[in-house]
């Protein structure tokens, strides 16, 4: 096993330990924040599949998140469904919605796709209000949070955290398998060169629409988990700001990475709050500046940085002497010259 691999495993282990330890290290409020981070991470993962791996841009991801959140809220609060049952339903509904959006998206690329998805993202609060018979419009829907069953020796917030983690894990594993396999390679080929992909037998239509649907499904599941965690949905909860936040999370975490979703979600949950703590009035300035700074310094996101560090750390001891030396002039260097 290479050094790099050992390092990676080591870091994974640490990460797992931390993730499991969180509910015992922090009070209920913080744990609640981390639970929300997990819900966001699932949605961001879906968006990353769409944007990072298959190269299709979406500025309206919040719409599917909202759809999933409302499906869960309506079923639980109004129809008395058990919480867990709403997850597959939310996922299925959003999958279908993603297919619907994916079909016209076939014909669009880049800027144009961005605009259409932007339109979808904007329309969400309006549509929620318009269908108020179902959604209770601006009153919003209050949802009871899942509480720890008696035989589990955990507090409610800890239970919810572990439940969310447990539900999110398979989503991450599934995504990870997808991108490592045939599907992932097809997506990346499609992203880099559509003609080549077609020539290699990739059915563009299936993959493009399929990716949309999968991304939507992930967003919907994230939305349902969000409903469990926050316990309330209203039109004001799902504005364009949310879609932008998801996109920022994808890029900050690392495009075309799986673990990037977690870091991205941590970023969009905590940075605005910290910015606000530093200075209420300047919170937006701080947040915007941090976002821009991230784009300068960490173009491949946090995970990208992590990978680079791991690579450097796992080089044979002796550091940057022979062999590494001056960086080779590659494509990325040439670009920086411009």
């Amino acid at each position, binding site marked *: 096993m290479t050094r790099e691999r050992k390092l990676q495993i*080591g870091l994974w282990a640490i990460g797992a330990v931390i993730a499991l330890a969180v509910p015992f290290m922090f*009070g209920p*409020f913080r744990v*609640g924040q981390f639970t929300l981070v997990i819900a966001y991470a699932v949605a961001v993962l879906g968006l990353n599949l769409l944007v990072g791996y298959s190269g299709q841009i979406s500025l309206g991801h919040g719409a599917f998140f909202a759809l999933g959140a409302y499906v869960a809220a309506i079923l639980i609060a109004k129809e008395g469904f058990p919480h867990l049952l709403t997850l597959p339903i939310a996922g299925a509904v959003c999958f279908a919605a993603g297919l619907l959006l994916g079909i016209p998206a076939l014909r669009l690329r880049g800027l144009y796709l961005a605009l259409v998805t932007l339109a979808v993202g904007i329309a969400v609060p309006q549509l929620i209000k318009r269908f108020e018979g179902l959604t209770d419009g601006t009153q919003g829907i209050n949802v009871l949070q899942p509480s720890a069953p008696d035989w589990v020796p955990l507090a409610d917030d800890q239970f919810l955290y572990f439940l969310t983690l447990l539900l999110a894990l398979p989503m991450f594993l599934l995504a990870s398998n997808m991108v490592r396999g045939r599907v992932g390679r097809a997506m990346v080929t499609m992203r880099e060169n559509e003609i080549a992909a077609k020539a290699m037998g990739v059915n563009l239509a299936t993959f493009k629409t399929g990716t949309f649907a999968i991304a939507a499904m992930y967003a919907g599941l994230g939305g349902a988990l969000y409903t469990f965690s926050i316990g309330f949905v209203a039109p004001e909860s799902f504005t364009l700001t949310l879609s932008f936040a998801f996109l920022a999370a994808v890029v900050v975490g690392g495009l075309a990475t799986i673990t990037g979703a977690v870091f991205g979600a941590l970023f969009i949950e905590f940075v605005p709050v910290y910015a606000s703590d530093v200075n*209420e009035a300047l919170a937006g300035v701080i947040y915007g500046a941090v976002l821009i700074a991230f784009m300068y310094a960490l173009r491949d996101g946090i995970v990208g940085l992590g990978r680079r560090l*791991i690579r450097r750390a796992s080089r044979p001891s002796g550091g940057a002497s022979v062999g590494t030396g001056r960086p080779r002039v590659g494509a990325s260097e040439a670009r920086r010259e411009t």
Partner: protein
Amino acid sequence: MGRFTGKRLLWLALLAAAALFVAACGRDEDEGGGEGGSDPGITKTEIKLGGSYPFSGPASAYKTIADGAKAYFKKVNAEGGVDGRKIKFVTLDDAYEPPRAVQNARRLVEQEQVFALFNTLGTPNNLAIWDYMNQKKVPHLFVATGASDWGEDIKAHPYTIGWQPDYVTEAQVYANYLKEEKPDAKVAALYQNDGFGKDLLGGFEEAIQGSNIKVVAKESYEVTDPTVASQVSKLASSGADTFLNITTPKFSAQAIVAVAKSNWKPLHILNNVGASKALVLTPAGLDNAKGIVSTTYYKDPEDPKWADDPAMTEYKDGLKAFSSRSNPNDPFHVYGWGAAQTMVEALKNMKEPTRAALMDSVRNLDQEVPILLPGIKVETTPDDGYALEAMQVQRFDGKRWRLVGDVVESER
């Protein structure tokens, strides 16, 4: 520089994890309780209150409410506090987003360990947190919204109470006014498509039932709309002779201008939130606003009538001393100041330093708040969850608002 080996990195990381453990050092459960028998957030020297406001985002214009409240608390502290306890008001930004309000509430209650939540702003935000607040049995007081929910539901949400006259009360005042002045009015309504707009319009429609007043046209708008000009244009051609303008400041100004520019000359009724001379009428043009009718329940900082009024002087001096960047003519400051006065009164009337005693005090208020109009009192009983239920009609004469008639009480 040492060797940056993989092994070192691993150890470093493990060390970091261990440090995290030690730092977080076991879990801080909430409800730790204060000293001997009293609740969190209150000690012999301090009372901690929490608030969630939109300091950023689409509703940021209302943050001046927080400024007004803070100024009053600072003044009270400068004068010794409440029974020797200084008030600490911790405010957090929720950008008018319900999920952030939920998190703020949890943070304030569990991490900041506040005694009570005061004056949280926005109907959806308060709806998002009131179940939680009542579940935790933390007082959720004097919320900054006029939705009727807060007074309707005392049994299910005993820890929640509003402050301002709610929108239904306000609508009743308009209905009454019309019944007297224009009993056959044909009303065209512009309303914001959210809880605030719908509550007011709904209250109005209910209050005019059985009379000859009719709503002949309704147009809504979203806060994300750039302008309401086209809605007003439509209403102008509806044949109505009365314009019920249920909007928030920016859109109120737009509507006033749109009406003034058209040929439509209705009786213009403007809701209280949008009636500020400083924030709305001046940008819209004082001449355009002549004849507009609205309601109010507190003294107008720009009304010369109150120039020497002790309460007004106290407010203006206090704002200058404790919030010097603030514009005293911004009515939201007065609002915050007034609500804070009720909060302090409730704290003063507490029989014990406990949340239960605070709620008891809150449910039995009978307070003259000097910055409110004479004749309007804060009154609550265990069955009556509406703190303020009266308003007075005012008409703009081109230069200032003039009070009309008497204080009108709600018909609940």
